[in-house]
């Protein structure tokens, strides 16, 4: 296994260093390393101006289409390159050593990154090698033998016996709209009839025998209508107790109304 070959020397990504698609790069360090290695640049003497220009040009077209986080990573590197370029333009001591070279930190990072690219190639090799070993159980069991052809001999009795085993289809559930409707008028007349016969009528009696919601609604509307006409009074002792409908005392009500009017007139 030789881990070194793919990264160093000739570029694995093509000769032209300018037309690079950023998609192929893991990140800014990867791109920068590609620019340096594909042009045979001495990594300890990077021409920062040239590399910065190439780096920025590679970004130009694709930056907008990138997810913002990834774009930020590339831009951060562009900013670093521009900063180094600026520092190199400043007057320096005549004998620069590595500690003062503004490129030193970048070179350290690039070499560290390249170092781990070598490890990546070692791992790739190991992964490929491991993929060539197989444990048990990878090959599927033999297919079931094809069934031998059997001549079909069937009597009516056999056929019926099999047919009898097929369960009866369940009757389909049909949803029908309620066929019988009830009107408020019907309930009003029912209520009047009942009130004429008895002193009080249970509200339940108006709809319970039919048991449908339509009857309950019609009964309620009928009771309210008659109460509005003061033909009956509605009584309920407490919430959820039975509701009782009592004949309204129309005369008494009229008298009360008249009394109220005279009181107003007296004022």
């Amino acid at each position, binding site marked *: 296994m030789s881990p070194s070959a793919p990264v160093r020397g000739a570029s694995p990504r093509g000769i032209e260093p300018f037309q690079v698609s950023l998609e192929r790069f893991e990140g800014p*360090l990867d791109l920068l390393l590609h620019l340096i290695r594909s042009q045979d640049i001495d990594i300890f003497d990077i021409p920062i101006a040239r590399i910065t220009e190439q780096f920025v040009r590679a970004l130009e077209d694709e930056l907008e289409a990138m997810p913002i986080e990834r774009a930020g990573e590339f831009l951060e590197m562009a900013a670093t390159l521009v900063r180094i370029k600026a520092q190199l333009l400043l007057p320096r001591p005549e004998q620069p050593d590595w500690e003062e070279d503004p490129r030193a930190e970048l070179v350290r990072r690039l070499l560290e990154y390249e170092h781990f690219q070598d490890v990546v190639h070692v791992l790739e090799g190991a992964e490929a090698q491991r993929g*060539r070993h197989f444990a048990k159980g990878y090959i*599927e069991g033999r297919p079931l033998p094809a069934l031998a052809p059997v001549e079909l001999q069937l009597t009516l009795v056999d056929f019926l016996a099999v047919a009898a085993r097929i369960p009866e289809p369940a009757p389909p559930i049909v949803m029908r709209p309620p066929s019988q409707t009830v009107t408020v008028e019907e309930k009003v007349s029912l209520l009047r009839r009942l009130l004429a016969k008895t002193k009080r009528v249970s509200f339940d009696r108006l709809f319970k025998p039919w048991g449908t919601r339509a009857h309950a609604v019609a009964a309620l509307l009928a009771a309210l209508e008659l109460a509005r006409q003061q033909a009956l009074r509605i009584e309920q002792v407490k919430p959820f107790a039975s509701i009782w409908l009592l004949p309204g005392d129309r005369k008494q009500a009229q008298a009360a109304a008249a009394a109220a009017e005279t009181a107003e007139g007296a004022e």
Partner: protein
Amino acid sequence: MKVEQIVEATLFASQTPLTADEVARADENLDAESVVGAIQALREAYEESERAFQIYQLGDGYQILTRPEYAPYLERFDSVPRAPHLSPAALETLAIVAYRNPIGRIEIEEVRGVSASSVLRTLLDWELVEVVGRGEGLGRPLLYGVTRKFLEHFGLKDLTDLPAPDELPVVLGELQQAMEAELEEAGADEDEEGVEEPGPKEASPVKEAEEEAT
């Protein structure tokens, strides 16, 4: 019955790697040491009789696997999986974690120059890395290390199966040497010109200290 046969039967019947201790559960008279000895004997026997399989050590476990030269035949069957490929981002992250183990997310990102949070999450899901502790410093960051499954995936016994950092094309050592060469050159130039400048000489006390130490 011989120890070797018991060990062989146990490894044969298993679909996953077994540690020596796990194999030893097969019989009261077995212990890890005798299992390892039996495995060694079996390996030699397989080698000698040119079997198509061998006992391989993956992490701390042992497994009977086919030899690589038979892969082309097995790969003709649809149910045999093609060699798995991890993405470049996953490999890059694993490389850093394997060599800097234990390491925090921030340090990984410093090396890669890109975010590592999503790739770390994937690697955690695949159980190729695990949280091995918490670091010092702000927020006590989680520290990651590679797992037994990592070793199994790459067919490694342990991390020493990977080349030591200085066995790789020596990029980090190269940096060290280049820096030193650069410094020496700077020093030599000064001597020739006979200029005494305090600035660039800063590095020399360190060198002297090193020489004294050796």
